[in-house]
């Protein structure tokens, strides 16, 4: 029997299986949104309660992953809005010019790969509204139209936020990278 059907039959083992399958990726999703472990745990708990209680509405079993991801995303956005962390200014609607030369400096994928930790840390350092849009578009692969619907903004805002987030991310990576090199030099000199 399919996992979804077993969960619908309120099989406790099926609950656990479903949780083990999705808890980690969904927790990371929540953490990227909220940037706080306690908040992410609370949101994940609320999301799984919703998932277990409403799984009867899921007719197409193939859409289970997308459905769970959608519930977690919406719950995280709701939590952010309740904490008044997610605010989009009028300036956010204005088009953004990104300096592509910034990206050229770290253009090689190998360099990204070497600096995975830097990228990971840089994402966490982004302002809330940048981080949310960037995470939704890049990590969760939602289109700007989908993002605009979920966040209640226009798609232009989503695009401009993404570009600004990217610009800011590169700035942070560059800064940290430069700082890292300076530390390396200091250590090598010693």
């Amino acid at each position: 029997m399919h996992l979804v059907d077993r969960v619908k039959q309120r099989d406790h083992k099926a609950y656990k299986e479903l949780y083990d399958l999705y808890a980690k990726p969904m927790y990371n999703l929540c953490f990227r949104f909220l940037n706080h472990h306690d908040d992410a745990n609370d949101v994940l708990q609320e999301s799984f309660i919703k998932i277990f209680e409403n799984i009867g509405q899921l007719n197409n079993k193939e859409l289970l992953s997308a459905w769970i991801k959608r519930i977690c995303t919406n719950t995280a956005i709701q939590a952010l809005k309740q904490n008044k962390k997610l605010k989009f200014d009028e300036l956010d609607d204005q088009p953004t010019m990104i300096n592509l030369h910034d990206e050229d400096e770290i253009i090689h994928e190998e360099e990204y790969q070497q600096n995975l930790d830097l990228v990971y840390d840089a994402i966490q350092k982004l302002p809330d509204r940048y981080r949310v849009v960037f995470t939704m578009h890049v990590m969760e692969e939602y289109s700007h139209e989908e993002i605009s619907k979920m966040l209640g903004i226009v798609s232009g805002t989503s695009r401009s936020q993404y570009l600004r987030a990217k610009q800011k991310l590169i700035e942070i990576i560059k800064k940290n990278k430069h700082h890292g090199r300076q530390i390396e030099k200091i250590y090598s000199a010693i």
Partner: protein
Amino acid sequence: MEDKLKKFIQRSKTEFNREEPRPDLFDKIMENMDTEQTPLVAGKKLISTRMNWLAVAASLALLISCCWFLFYSNKPIYIQNTQVASGPIITTKNQAIITNEISSTSTAGKEQDIQIEKGTNNKTDQTPVAQLKSKNNRTAIPSNERLPAILQSNSLTAHKPIQSIITDEPKVNEQIAETSNSDQKISLQSNVTSNDPAPSMTQNPTMANQVSRMPEGAKIIASLPVANSSKSESLQKSKKSEDLAEEDTEQDNSLQSTIKKGIFGFLSKNAKKLTGNTLSIKNSDNGDYTVLALHYKNDKIEISKDINLGSFGE
């Protein structure tokens, strides 16, 4: 331009899932879930929950609107045909006791005068105390010395024009005396020729000013354009109209009572059905009074409230 950063992150997505949830989170989820429920059927639970809340909201809205309709939309019943004036219930802002003295009737003018005198304490700027003195002398009415019974009723409405004259200022045609008690505003309106209903004090503030300017010992004489010869007829008319008014009131009360019984009976019977066993309304009516016992209970809260609705028809 190719978005290399985006491609890189998407390709190495799993490496970004570094965090772990709390180990006891699953147990907490299970604790917060009601796992004893029946197996889920697509869409059924959510809809029923929504329907429950809708039913509760609808029931409460219906109950509140019924209560409002029954208890706050009761308009006072005015007896249009009764020629009633409040005779002696007049005080000004001062502590004035205005007694009802019936002056000698003016048969030539076919008007009967009401002489209203100020009481002993006539200082106009003192704290207002309204004292009502009324005499119900319906049974013994000397024909020529007293007001007709219709003038001595305690009703606060004055539909029959009364002419009042301040004896110290004979040129003033209209004078009003008002009880300063906020709950009881009584006006005497004089207009011999006109048959228009008397305006109240609040409708004509200049009248109130005139009263406040009354000198000490001033006397207000109100004249009623009722002929002596027609006194008995007016008495009979007033009695008939009072009877009719009482009948109307009884009919209204019985109608109210029927409506109340119907609505509350319906609510009592269907509350549980409408709200999915969350709200129960018990209607105890022993003839003298009605008590609605409301009881609301769901998974989270439980509320009980008895509402005493008093007696029907009152």
